[in-house]
């Protein structure tokens, strides 16, 4: 049986100690490394907190490729990438379906890597 508190709770506590107790005392030339460490911990905490997101990606890949997606998912992504390069998704409904999948996948990746960027980007009018 797993000992609690486990990975996520420990990382959260470690990050709080780093941010609240250590970083304020650091000389300026060491702050950047410590802030990077805090950011790495935040990414790890989000990855541990979110439900496994590959189910959605797997379903969408199967629909796009017309065949069950591989496990691990990388092989299906290689197939999709090769088909994109061949031009199979350049137009019409194939293009719309691909863009829907890529946007959803990018949102899922952003939720871990950088949730602040989840706001829709503003393009110049």
């Amino acid at each position, binding site marked *: 049986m797993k000992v609690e508190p486990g990975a996520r709770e420990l990382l959260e506590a470690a990050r709080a100690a780093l941010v609240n107790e250590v970083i304020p005392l650091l000389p300026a030339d060491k702050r950047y490394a410590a802030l*990077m460490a805090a950011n790495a911990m935040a*990414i790890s905490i989000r990855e541990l907190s979110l439900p496994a997101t590959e189910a959605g990606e797997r379903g969408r890949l199967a629909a796009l490729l017309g065949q069950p997606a591989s496990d691990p998912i990388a092989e299906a992504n290689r197939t999709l990438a090769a088909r994109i390069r061949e031009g199979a998704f*350049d137009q019409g409904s194939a293009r719309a379906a691909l863009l829907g999948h890529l*946007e959803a*996948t990018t949102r899922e990746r*952003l939720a871990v890597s950088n949730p602040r960027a989840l706001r829709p980007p503003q393009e110049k009018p």
Partner: protein
Amino acid sequence: MNAPLHPSANRPDDGSGHEPRLRAEGLLALACGGPLELESWERLSGGAIQENIAVEARVATGPHAGKHAWVLRMDAQSAVAVSLSRESEFAILRAVHAAGVLVPEPLFLCADGGGPSFFAMRRVPGVTAGHRLTKDDTLVPDRPRLARELGANLARLHRIAPPVASLAFLGDAPADGAKACVADYRRGLDELGAVRGEAWPALEWGLAWCARHAPAPLHSRLLHRDYRTGNYLVHEGRLTAVLDWEFAGWGDPREDIGWMLARCWRFARPDREAGGIGSAEDFLAGYAAEGGAGVSWEETIYWQVLAHLRWALIALQQAERHRSGSQASLELALTAHIVPELEGEILALTKARP
């Protein structure tokens, strides 16, 4: 070596690069033709590829007698194959300085084979930090003016057209810069994919879009290839010098424009298209006023997509250097987490356009 001996040869090791410092003193004394002492030696924030060292040099006699503030640009331990050697970078700096581009004046190249090659350039005052330049209006009181200066300076660079005898090491200019970029980035993704057993469908989509939309090429010019906020100095609100020329090469001049305008280089101010500093209009107007091609905002979209693709590929390559164990670094590891944001930009820019 017949460099004159000088008092600092007896200085105790202060842990700040004693041996490189002594070697630099000797080589610079030869280059200056007079006894020379480095009175200070301070590492500036550099990349993983190059080290920049600020020095104060006192030259006793000869044509360069006097006290000088220089920066020495030296290879770090982990040079990357795609970047230029110090010898080549020095040749580039001389060519662009002669063309009137704002750069630190290149002074002496020191390459004796007895250690890393380096060159000395005149130290230029100013701030490079992107988050400060984009946030702090006291550093940039007149943003439209700085945006125009950045455009004008890029136009002066883009007057340099191939062939240039002193830049022969750059190889042949591509006939079609956009198509060359697409082929280059695809090759980069394939190499990474073979190592990792992965693929990046959003980046493939961006590349397929760029392959379909490639514009009629402009004649190749000398490109900086990292012309962006963070790589130039601003002093008293004015552009004083563009740094970091290690990626320079021939290509379509709009590639540099797209890199400068891309959202990924706007730091604290994504609403200001020109590097978080000012508007695209002012930047492009400054570019055209100095003889650069007239380029519309809509025309830059293509090159902004290419810019995001290139940065995504570089980010994946940097993360792979950590992942493979060749260079363990938290900073390199975290770079991979920039990629989803770049993918989002590529999707947003391409979605509204067939």
